[in-house]
Structures are given as C-alpha cells and as structure tokens.
C-alpha cells in the first residue's frame, strides 16, 4: 500500500466504512431509532402538552409501580449470583475435561433449545403441588404437605435458573478451558495448593469472563417477563418491572408511560452493569497484590 500522511483517509478506511455501512444502518434503524423514540415518547405524557417528566414522577410516586423495581432486583440479583456461582463451580471443575463430558453438556444445554414456554410447562408439572418432586418427597416421608414451589417467587427463580444456567455454564466453560493449563501447573510447582491457584492465578484470569457472565445473566434476569407470568404471581409477589411496562402499554394503552417504565428499567440495568464493572476491577486488583503485601 502507498504510504499516507496522518489524518488522510486511506483506501482501506473507505473500504472498511463501506463494509460497515449495512450493519451500521441496521443498528440505527432497528436499535438506536426505537431507543431514542422510546425516550422521546416517555417525555411526552398523554395528559400533558409538550415535554414533561410527569411519567417518571408518576412511576416513583405510585407504590404499586415503584415496588416493581425492588421485586425485580430481589429476583435478578440472587438469581444472577446463584447462576454464576453454580456455573463457575461446575465449569472450573470440568476445565480439564471429565468423563462423559459431552453427555453432561448436552443434558445441561437441552433447556436452552426448549424455549421458555415448554420449560415453564415442565416446571409446573414437575414441581407443582401434585408433581413428581412433591410426590417423591411425600413418598420418602420427608414432608407432610406438598411444598408450594410454583406460582410464587420460588417458581420464577427455578425457571430463571434453568434458562440461564446452561447458557452461563457453557460460556464460562469455554472461557476457563481456554486458559493454558501450564499456567496452573507452574503455580502448583511454585508451591501453590489448589485453593491458592484458584484464588491468585485462575480467578483473576477468569475475571473478565466472569464479569461478562454476571452482566448478561443480570440483564436477562432483570428483564424477566414470561417466567414471572407463567410461574409467578404476575399481579403480586413477582410483578416485575417488565410486567409493569407491559400492563401500561397493552392494558392501559398508555405508551408514553410504558416507555418511561422501560427507560427506568434500562437505567437500572445500566446501574447493575456499572456495579459489575467496578467489582471486577477490584477483584483483579486484589488478586494482583501479593499475599506478602496484605
């Protein structure tokens, strides 16, 4: 290629831009425009002329509405922690490959391919009042009355876990098994036991993948909608913020208010991501500092 001065666009740059254009256009039309339109809509309440924050004020002054934020966090945060922790535990222990790995992975991944509705149907049948799970516990004499595991908080948690665990597990397994085993081996020969290896060597190397896993699972959990309706109490204990937005849009036909709720939901998701990024930075720093310096 001919040499070029700084700042002068090269043929390659033009080519790259030309290649980028279709996807850029897609993102603009399918994502940026609806997103900005949603924000615009949320600032134009039905009952007010011109721009106003009335919808936002309405949301935060109505307990029935702002309660949904708390409910969603109570579902999303524990679910995210449990899903990521379980995935990490399993993926870390499977990093060197295990017996029947393919079979185990297939079984774990199956729920993803089934879709939420079928999964919910299965959970209702299996964990329901007269389902196998309760029948088994009753039969073993471990409980006297059926446990209520569906149409409540637990039901939604179960469903979220089953949807997100395989996804998160696979992502972490790929990430962890991609780390050169000789790094771990060298730490062992330098005197580190398995726990020290995990804490000081592997965890900092897994941290970026772990942060992505946390972020994705959190965002998915926070936006939960079908699970909260099918396996929870959509009008009470599991009325998540997504249900609130849906109700405004398609039951009250108040699109601007629904948009405002959606924007609020997005902001909380962003806040969650920010916390994860900060935590990740701290985790890496803590691990890099030597034990001698603590």
């Amino acid at each position, binding site marked *: 290629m001919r040499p070029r001065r700084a700042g002068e666009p090269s043929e390659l740059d033009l080519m790259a831009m030309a290649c980028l254009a279709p996807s850029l256009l897609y993102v603009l039309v399918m994502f940026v425009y609806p997103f900005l339109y949603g924000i615009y809509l949320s600032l134009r309440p039905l009952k007010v002329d011109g721009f106003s924050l009335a919808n936002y004020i309405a949301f935060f002054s109505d307990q029935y509405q702002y309660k949904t934020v708390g409910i969603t966090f109570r579902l999303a945060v524990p679910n995210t922690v449990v899903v990521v922790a379980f995935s990490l535990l399993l993926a870390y222990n499977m990093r060197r490959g295990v017996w029947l790995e393919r079979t185990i992975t297939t079984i774990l991944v199956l729920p993803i391919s089934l879709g939420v509705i079928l999964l919910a149907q299965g959970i209702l049948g299996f964990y329901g009042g007269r389902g196998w799970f309760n029948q088994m516990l009753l039969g073993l004499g471990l409980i006297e009355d059926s446990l209520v595991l569906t149409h409540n908080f637990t039901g939604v948690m179960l469903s979220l876990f089953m949807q997100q665990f395989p996804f998160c597990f696979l992502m972490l397994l790929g990430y962890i098994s991609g780390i*050169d085993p*000789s*790094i771990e*081996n*060298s*730490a*062992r*020969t*330098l*005197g*580190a*036991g398995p726990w*020290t290896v995990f804490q*000081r*060597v592997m965890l*900092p*190397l897994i941290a970026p993948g772990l942060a992505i896993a946390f972020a994705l699972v959190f965002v998915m959990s926070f936006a939960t909608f079908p699970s909260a309706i099918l396996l929870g109490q959509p009008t009470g204990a599991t009325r998540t913020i997504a249900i609130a937005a849906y109700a405004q849009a398609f039951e009250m036909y108040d699109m601007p208010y629904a948009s405002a709720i959606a924007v609020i939901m997005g902001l909380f998701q962003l806040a969650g991501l920010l916390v994860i990024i900060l935590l990740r930075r701290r985790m*890496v720093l803590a*691990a*890099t500092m*030597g*034990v*001698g*310096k603590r």
Partner: protein
Amino acid sequence: MKETIESLRFRITKRFGAKTVLKDFGLEVRGRQFITFLGPSGCGKSTALNIIAGLIPATDGEVWLDGERIDHLPPEKRGFGMVFQNYALFPHMTVFGNIAFGLQLQRRPAAEIAERVRQMLDLVQLPGFEGRYPGQLSGGQQQRIAIARALVLHPRLLLLDEPLSNLDAKLRIEMRAEIKRIHTSLGLTSIYVTHDQVEALSLSDWVVVMRDGLLIQAGTPQEIHDQPVNVFVADFMGFRNFFQTQVVALGPDREVEATGNGMKIRGKTRHTFAPGASVVVAIRPDDVVVGGDVGGPNAFRAKVDIVEYLGREDEVILTLESGARLWVHTEARLTPGDLVPVVFPPEKVIFLPTEGPGGTA
C-alpha cells in the same frame, strides 16, 4: 542455598485409557547432573517429567528422592522448579509478581523477596525488568523470567519441558548456553526434555533416549553419539545411511566384516554377532569420504543425483552401484551425473542389530 539432591530414583508406568505411554520407565539420577530425556514426540518424555513433578499421577510405579518416596506428594510439596515450553508466566502479574509468587506463598519478608527477585533478574541478565508484564516481553525474555521464577525458590531439582522449542534458531543456541551456565554456576540437578539431539548432546551429562514409552539407551552424550545401540538411536543421532548386510567374518577386537547389496564393509561393533547374522551397517553423511582409491577397503563407486548447497559444504545424494541411496556431506563440489568414488572409513562404520521386537530398532 538448599543443597541439591543426592539421587532421584523412579520406575513408572503410565496408561491413558488403553494406551500405554510409559512402560516401566526406570532410572536413577544422581545429584548435580544434567539429564536429558530425548525422543520423538509421543515417546512419553514429557509425561515422565510431569509425573516426576507430580502434575500427572503415574498409573503404577514409584518415585524416590534421597531415600524418601515422593510419588504421593502433590506438586506444591515437592520443592521442584519447573520451566514450561510456553513459558506459562502469569499474564496478570508483573515480572516482579511472577518471580516473587513462590516467595510470597512462603511468607518471606518483603525486603528479602525484593532482594532475591533482583538477584534472579541479574542471574538471567534482565535487571530492571521488575515492572514489566509478560505480554511486553519477547519469547526469549519470557523464558528467562520463567527460569528465574523457578530458580528463586532454590529448587532441589529443576525440570525443563522443551524450554527452547518456541524460540527461533539463533535465540535457541543463546539460551542453551545460558541454561548450561546457570545449571553449572548454581550446582543444580536438572532434568531436561527435548526432541532435539543437538540440545541433548550439548547440555547433558547423561542422555536418556526414549521411544514409545521405553528407555532405549542411556549414556553419556559421547556414548549415545558414537555408539548408538540400535537403528532408532543411530537415526536420531544423525546416522543417515543404513545398509542391510550379513556378517561374514568376525575378527579379534570386535572387528566385523559384512556383505550385502554387493558391498563388502569392514568396521567395528560393540554388539556380539554370530557369523551369518543379519546386521545393519550405518554411517553418517559427514563421515563418508568422497574420492580416494576404489580398490581399497570400504570403497565404492556412486553416481551423483542431487546436490544441495548448505553453505560450507554440500549435501549430496548419490546412488551406489548396488542401487542403494547414499547421503554425503562434502566440501567437494560435485555435479549431478558425476560418477565418483566414495569410501566408508572403517573406524566410522558401526554395525547394529536388525530391527527386532521390544523396541530394539
């Protein structure tokens, strides 16, 4: 500094599923020596090293160190240093963090750690590199840091798993000398795994040639180089010309005369052969003399087929009158099509047993 070991003794078998990668591989290593496990890929040499390090469990067998059985100990309890082919530095730690890692685990005082890291960086000739990250270093520098990280703990045994394989040719020669210098100056006991016979010969006090999980030959570099026990070792040690022959006469002092392919070849052997036995005659390309008297012993006529320029000399492929191929390194500038006399000096010819069972070939 902690004293190095007196002896390391092991006899190990390793199976992965149905595949046996080490078959009763046994050896006794004495302290302050440089031992090399040499063999082609898949011969089990790295597996043996990993078993000694404790990173892989043996299927069967024992490892003894100075009269103490250690094969049940996890790697972190063995006190060995290990250097890996791909350096295996901790990418999230600085050079200081990497070298200090083991010392920090031993909860040494900060001042001592700093001092010992500095000494190690001097030893590997990278002073002042404390603050760099592995990603900012070249391959050769990374391997020096890996060596420093292993040595800072004063290991009683240093294990090196093909440490130079990822480096380019020039750097490899440089680092080879470096490893030898460090080994000698610190009085270490080292076990070195390689598939490169030049590395093995130049570094070692003792070379162990392996194939298919078996020990084929162990000896000093001179023994391995001059008196390979079979065709496999000879091939590995640079013998390129092999001829199937039959023993016709045995003289005193292990002299042998053999015929085959219309050639009569004289030389010496370390093996005992019966008259009439099939033997393989071997000679290195460098030892064949081009020119001379065709009437003398071990002299033949050959036609030049291919000439490859190697710089100081040419590699020439010839066809002997018997039809056999002959590889020769010579400074004589030959032309394809030439008919030239070649001589196998009897003192350079070796006689080996023909391929037999049990990995003897």
